[in-house]
């Protein structure tokens, strides 16, 4: 049966789920954990590490370990987020060929979609082990406020990993699916989603299995990592006051601070205060070791981060207004994202909405579960669940004078389309350039560029006489296409607006091939390892047997000689990558082993 898995590709953690026999369930990874850290590392030997393995070695391999890459995906080189990351991240960010950012690891430049593809690959593998077959289709979630470039980059990541991402859907929306699936609801709910890197709020109307997104908004620069950063700052500041040393300039110390901050944050969700103990955090030039030993109270933590919490509530208010509702209209508030475990956040949300948030869904798993539910609904064509998703940003075009004319408003239910007639603005104008943009600013240049195209061959005429009909369409899978027709000549032109993920088609294909090569190589390496282990084991056993039996028996002596030479021969191949030779050597040794065993037993 065809299956579409659901993947929550998070800033700090990722999660994969599937619907089995009508029940959505999260698939645990090999370690038994339901979430996998979104961390990728390249080891000295060029091996890729993902998840817990990558996270664990981050301290010793900070420069070649990438975390929170989701914050960079689909962003341009000169964006503030890339600037910020260059300053604060231990890994090296360089400029890519298409005005994009790339990460340099072990001398090789990786695009952001490639980094994400490594994580997606891992999630795919987790699903494969559970399902017994490799899934090739997935619904992947992104923060509601991701723009088209970020979505496209995520889609490209899927392609590189060999996964067809059939839908990109918004995280809070999927959380709502997980909340309402299989329950006969008739209610208006708010999803407050504070994850590792982003904050999203969505208001949905749920009735008769239909999940209608009324409005959605968010902040892609606000998440759990900002809470961690406040703790890091605080710790570094206190340390600097005492020792006059800024720990943040020391890569290793910073990494340890980061781990400690995250741990402290998590502990403060259940405790009133927590010990932070980082011995030998820094060695002074004179060799003296410095330790960081302090306690952090929940109260202090709340004080350090209260402005962040308030920022989320401001966005909630704007979103409610946008959907024409008040807090009284909200029947239930659902908390999603690990950060919502913070008691202060629960309290503030409760105070704001006037009701205790629902505990129906698991904050770490709801998003992946919802994605799997949507995947299953698509495959089955069932009418139990229908998601009416919206486009989160205004879409439109640049008009004369650099203005931005909105054609499809934010929060329009998709699929949707809109037609508009444009006229020439100059006498004898024979072509028009249509610049498609996405964003919320009145000025064209302050919005995200989605694409541009030129309609040429217009009749020479006074300004305003020639009319061009331009139709914009967003399909159910979020793909934007623009269709222009010269009304006089009937000449048509249409493009599918391919948002720029920072990669060309050719590059993506190269990356797909490279990834496949890597996987083949990896598989080959594993095979070799197995064969070597078999050879080593045979050698060990033979040696044990011939050691014990070294009297002057002639047959035994002959056997011994045969064994010794077979061992010597096999040892030559042990370091080689010749799979056939290793196989032959292994077979030979096992035969020898049998003879030796037989001799020993008969003796």
């Amino acid at each position: 049966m065809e299956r579409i898995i659901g993947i929550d590709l998070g800033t700090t953690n990722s999660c994969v789920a599937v619907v089995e026999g009508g029940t959505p369930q999260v698939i645990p990874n090999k370690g038994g954990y339901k979430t996998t850290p979104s961390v990728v590392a390249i080891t000295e030997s060029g091996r890729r590490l993902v998840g817990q393995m990558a996270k664990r070695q981050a301290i010793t391999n900070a420069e070649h370990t990438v975390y929170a890459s989701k914050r960079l995906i689909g962003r341009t080189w000169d964006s503030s987020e890339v600037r910020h990351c260059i300053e604060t991240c231990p890994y090296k960010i360089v400029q890519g060929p298409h005005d994009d950012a790339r990460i340099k690891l072990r001398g090789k430049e990786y695009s952001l979609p490639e980094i994400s593809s490594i994580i997606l690959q891992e999630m795919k593998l987790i699903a494969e082990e559970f399902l017994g077959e490799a899934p090739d289709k997935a619904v992947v979630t992104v923060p509601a406020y991701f723009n088209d470039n970020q979505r496209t980059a995520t889609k490209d990541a899927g392609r590189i990993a060999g996964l067809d991402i059939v839908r990109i859907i918004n995280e809070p929306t999927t959380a709502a699916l997980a909340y309402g699936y299989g329950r006969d609801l008739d209610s208006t709910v708010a999803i407050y989603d504070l994850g590792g890197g982003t904050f999203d709020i969505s208001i949905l109307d749920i009735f008769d299995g239909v999940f209608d997104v009324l409005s959605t908004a968010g902040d892609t620069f606000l998440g759990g990592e900002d809470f961690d950063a406040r703790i890091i700052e605080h710790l570094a500041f206190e340390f600097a006051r005492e020792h006059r040393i800024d720990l943040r300039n020391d890569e290793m110390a910073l990494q340890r601070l980061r781990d400690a901050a995250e741990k402290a944050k998590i502990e403060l969700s259940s405790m009133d205060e927590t010990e932070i103990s980082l011995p030998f955090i820094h060695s002074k030039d004179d060799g003296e070791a410095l330790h960081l030993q302090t306690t952090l109270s929940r109260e202090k933590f709340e004080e350090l981060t209260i402005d962040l919490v308030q920022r989320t509530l401001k966005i909630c208010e704007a979103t409610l207004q946008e959907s024409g509702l008040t807090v009284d209209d909200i029947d239930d508030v659902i908390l999603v994202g690990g950060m919502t475990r913070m008691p202060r956040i629960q309290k503030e949300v409760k105070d704001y909405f006037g009701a205790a948030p629902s505990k129906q869904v698991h904050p770490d798993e709801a998003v992946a579960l919802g994605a799997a539910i949507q995947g299953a609904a698509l495959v089955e064509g069932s009418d139990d669940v229908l998601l009416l998703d919206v486009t989160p940003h205004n879409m439109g075009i640049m008009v004369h004078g650099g203005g931005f004319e909105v054609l499809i408003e934010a929060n329009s239910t998709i699929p949707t389309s809109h037609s508009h007639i444009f006229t020439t603005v100059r006498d004898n104008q024979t072509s028009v350039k249509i610049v498609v943009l996405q964003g919320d600013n009145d000025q064209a240049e302050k919005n995200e560029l989605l694409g541009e195209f030129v309609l040429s061959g217009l009749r020479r005429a006074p300004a305003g006489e020639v009319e061009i009909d331009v139709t914009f369409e967003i399909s159910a899978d979020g793909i934007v296409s623009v269709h222009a027709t010269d009304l006089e000549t009937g000449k048509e032109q249409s493009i599918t607006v391919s948002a720029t993920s920072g990669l060309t088609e050719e590059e993506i294909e190269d990356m797909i091939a490279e990834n496949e090569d890597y996987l083949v190589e990896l598989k080959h390496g594993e095979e070799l390892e197995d064969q070597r282990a078999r050879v080593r084991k045979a050698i060990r056993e033979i040696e044990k047997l011939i050691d014990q039996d070294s009297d002057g028996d002639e047959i035994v002596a002959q056997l011994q000689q045969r064994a010794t030479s077979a061992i010597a021969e096999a040892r030559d191949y042990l370091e080689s990558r010749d799979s056939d030779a290793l196989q032959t050597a292994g077979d030979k040794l096992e035969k020898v082993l049998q003879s030796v065993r037989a001799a020993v037993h008969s003796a």
Partner: protein
Amino acid sequence: MSDLDENLAPAPASDVDPRSLKTSPTAEEYFILSRLDGAITIGQLCKISGLGAEKTLQCIENLHRHGLIHLPGTSESPSANSSPPSAAANSESDASKSSNTDELADSIRDRFPGDFTNFAFDEELLEQQVELEIDFKRELLFVHQQLDQIDYYQLLGVDRDARRRRLRRAYFPMSKRYHPDRFYKKITGDFEPIIQNIFERVTAAYQTLSDRNKRAEYDAALERGRASHASLRGSTPASRRSESRENIMGDRKRNMAFKVLVQRGDKAFDKGRVALALKEYRKAFGLRPDAELALRVARRLLDEQVHLDDGISFARMAHKIDPDSPQAVALIGALYEEKGGLDDALYHYELALESAPGDPELTARISRLKQALHS
């Protein structure tokens, strides 16, 4: 003692306020209620509640009877002495679901002016090999061709004073019916844009009518009786202009196409290829329901004594457009008579006579028929 499935995971009902109940739950029941989250199963709860299995089950049953919890897979209106086996409950809800769907289909058809059984469907599209039921294909064409002929209220099947609750009750099932996601795995061919168009229009209707400002604007435009419905979509002056422009262009194109189709039909008829001719006429009729055309076609079929059933259907179309004219009804009668359906013929002649009392031709036919029927 209890037939509750211990693998069920009850969830608290968010819509019921325990304080509003006549008999308030006991502290024990309340305690159990506070443990429920829709994830923990009844079996698990029995083990951890500290009240023992029997007591715990009793509490759950009481809570369920009060309507304070939902039990997945069981009927939502439980009776105290027996809860129906879940399989039966499912099949029951399936049956009601499918009849709901049929009801919806009927209700949607009734919202449009055309006559569904005699609608001039685009035969070529109907025959296209796609993974859609024939009835649904017909519905899609029927709805799509007439989208511009009804207003948003009619489209959603709601009264002019419908409020938000009523609107969403009307819209949600329709959105489920026409959302492209429902056909994700299906080959829909040329029906794909049709489905999307219908969904977009239904959504526009819902969104316009549920937004106070947009609705006021829309109502005002309806009041002004602005020419065609299409010109009412959108709210900015620019978009309105573009829509009406599109519509004028569309009308011109449509008239051209209508004429071409009628000519093609006539030509085919002249050559004796009646079936093909009828197909062309039907297409033309789909573009513009024209009573004159329908009458002309029906009469010619009668004259040449071919495809009499089609003749009846064309005559019915004419009657539907202009119900007061006796011509169409008389023609139906004549067609039946030719077919040998004398009772039906008599009925229609008499019906026609009601709109044209004393018509000598009709009177003569009626008496002739009565004689024939008696003998």
